[in-house]
């Protein structure tokens, strides 16, 4: 496996979908390759940073309206 192939397998690796043989070859390559190790670490950081987009507080007026809707939900 060379670097060009390894970078395209990063997601399969992170998802745990590589075959045992490919996984072993992938890990063997990574162990000896600074560039690919850095790339893998960057993919993990990327995933973590994308996750931060979840931190978006609900605007207070929207929350109030939804809670109101929830309260009235059972009323005829």
């Amino acid at each position, binding site marked *: 496996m*060379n*670097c*060009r*192939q390894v*970078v*395209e397998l*990063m*997601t*399969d690796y*992170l*998802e*745990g*979908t590589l075959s045992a043989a490919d996984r072993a070859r992938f890990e063997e390559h990574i162990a000896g*390759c*600074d*560039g*690919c*190790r*850095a*790339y893998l*670490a*960057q*993919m*993990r*950081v*990327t*995933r*973590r*940073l*994308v*996750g*931060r*987009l*979840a*931190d*978006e*507080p*609900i*605007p207070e007026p*929207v*929350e109030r*309206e*939804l*809670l109101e*809707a*929830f*309260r009235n*939900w*059972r009323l005829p």
Partner: protein
Amino acid sequence: MQPLPFRSRSYPSPAEAEHIHDSELEALKAGDEAAFQSLIHRHHGPMLRLAMSHVGDRGVAEDVVQEAWLTCLRSLDRFEGRSSLKTWIFGIVINVARARRRKEARILPFASFWRRDDSDSRRPTVDQSRFGSDGMWRAGPHSWDNVPESKVLGGETLQKVKAAIESLPPKQREVILLRDVAGFEAVEVSALLGISAANQRVRLHRARAAVRKMLEEYLG
């Protein structure tokens, strides 16, 4: 499916999640306002991002989220728990957002939706000039370990991430938002979008690679 070996965020395991959702669903059906409040707090950010990825405009996206919640309330009695509550809610968001996009598209031409979408292609995600003829790095990426954490976690980095996601083709954007922002598992995303496990993975790979590339330009 093998378990995912590396998770950057901790989500409950599927079995655990099911259990949480069951009791949450019971609480909602019983009219427990605190349960509903916790739900809307937890899902607002991911729902808004997902809605924005369909309708573009933030104000319209906020409407979509609100309409989706109201639809959830109207249909909750009919929800039988065949999927998790969270999957059901996000399915509704996607439907409401798609309907709204069709409506908006009649008024405004929406340039980004006409762009060519190579989401399912297996073309390389890394600039081929970075590799030598032996396929090894000519100019490998640098570790971000030495970039100050204040920069990595700073507001400007977050803006870059947002911009990168906005510039993705819609099919990739949807997958990365559901996986990395909403925190769904791969199988859940395949089911929600009606795509194969392989396509889900290819779109996720292309999306993350594109965001990484944009971050590399900024972080070095």
